[in-house]
């Protein structure tokens, strides 16, 4: 079964590179290093409907990003979560509030292309219910520190992220690696009207729990001048996580508006 998943992953990557592509918008489940002009705001949401062997969760964040200047961004994420646990308990509450900071330290520009790297930190505050769901609601303070790199050209976009999530009160520290490919289906034009495909991989290694998972998200995005609508479906390719934390699938539905 694991080998089948690995084959699927390989085929998906190959497929991604074989698309005749032009340009793309921001990734859906991965992160990006490009910040759109100093002094701008982006309001976002990315509703996730996640199913694990521990229950079903609907995560609804309201995110406000502010680009301070061309090299720095801060953001506040206020999420709500509704849950239906396998134990029979269900309910809804505020999930863990997150504070995000990004600083761009490398930028190499060319005509119709750019390569950028940013340092990123995501501080998760223990405001949510103790549901033990990774990245959604653990009810514990968490600090994530990572690097995001991205190459964007008029033909395709690649984004990559490597980071460490540290939880002082717990044994759920994990190392995370994200890799995303963005490919548009329409010719580049401005004012933009795009339909983009995304192929995004997220691998997480919980060394203290001896757990590992590799998730694949297939996404599609409709983008206009300063607004996007995102849809993605995520499933596990490798799933060696402890019982109660095994990921089954996620459906993402989101939108973002820059002003």
């Amino acid at each position, binding site marked *: 079964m694991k080998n089948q998943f690995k084959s699927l992953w390989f085929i998906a990557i190959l497929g991604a590179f074989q698309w005749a592509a032009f*340009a*793309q*918008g*921001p990734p859906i489940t991965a992160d990006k290093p*490009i*910040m*759109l*002009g*100093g*002094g*701008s705001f982006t309001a976002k949401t990315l509703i996730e409907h996640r199913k694990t062997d521990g229950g079903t969760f609907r995560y609804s964040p309201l995110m406000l990003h502010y680009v301070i*200047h*061309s*090299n720095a961004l801060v953001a506040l994420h206020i999420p709500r979560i509704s849950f239906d646990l396998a134990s029979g308990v269900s309910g809804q509450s505020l999930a863990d509030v997150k504070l995000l900071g990004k*600083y*761009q*330290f*490398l*930028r190499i*520009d*060319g*005509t*119709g*292309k*750019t390569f950028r790297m940013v340092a990123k930190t995501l501080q998760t505050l223990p405001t949510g219910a103790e549901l033990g769901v990774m990245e959604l609601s653990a009810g514990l303070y968490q600090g994530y520190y990572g690097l995001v790199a991205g*190459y*964007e*050209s*008029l033909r395709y*976009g690649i984004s990559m992220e490597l980071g460490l999530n540290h939880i002082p009160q717990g044994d759920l520290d994990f190392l995370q690696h994200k890799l995303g490919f963005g490919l548009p289906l329409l010719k*580049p*034009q*401005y*004012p*933009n009207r*795009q339909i983009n495909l995304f192929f995004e991989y997220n691998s997480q290694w919980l060394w203290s729990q001896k757990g590992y998972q590799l998730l694949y998200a297939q996404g599609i995005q409709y*983008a206009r*001048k*300063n607004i996007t609508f995102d849809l993605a479906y995520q499933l596990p390719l490798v799933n060696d996580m402890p019982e109660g934390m095994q990921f089954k699938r996620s459906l993402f539905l989101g939108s973002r508006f*820059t002003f």
Partner: protein
Amino acid sequence: MISLFMSFLLMSTVAFAQKPMDAFEVQVDGLGCPFCAYGLEKKFKEFKGIKEVKIDIETGDFSFAYPAEKALSLAAVVSQVEKAGYSPMKTVITRANGLVETDAPLEVKDVALAAVQTKDLFVAGNCEMCEARILKATSRLEGITEAAWDSKTKMLHISFDSKQQSENSISQAIALAGHDTKLHKAQASTYETLPMCCKYERLKN
């Protein structure tokens, strides 16, 4: 009645007469996607009165018109592109009165008859990105024939037409780009926008 009609006609003509506009063309690098172009346009919308914004994302050609009475400077345009997070490569302004301003390097044929002078100037900086920024700032000036900066000695070896540039004007252009020189210091706000690796030790007064 006729005079009232004539007055109305005159007022309408004045109100609807087109203001003289300066035309701006900027070659911008780093526009890797249409969203990048949106970021650029949004930043320039801060210039109230901007019109006819056009961006060709495949070539990076960005053009717009702006009321001539506001005398928008070339340095302000370049700085605004940088604030948007992109790299301005070449800027040409055609003023409403026909004058053309550009930061494109002077062609060799124009320099042949010029009085070329060579100087070594101290310019603070750290890395290759600093080098690129310093050289770009000098390349925008007219009359520069040669420029090289050494990150170890911090010395800029520069040749220029002394009829068009001076040590002072070159130092000023470099300081505007964010690098301290002996004659001019960069503004703190510009220095703050430099990437981490470029944050050199500021020169004391």
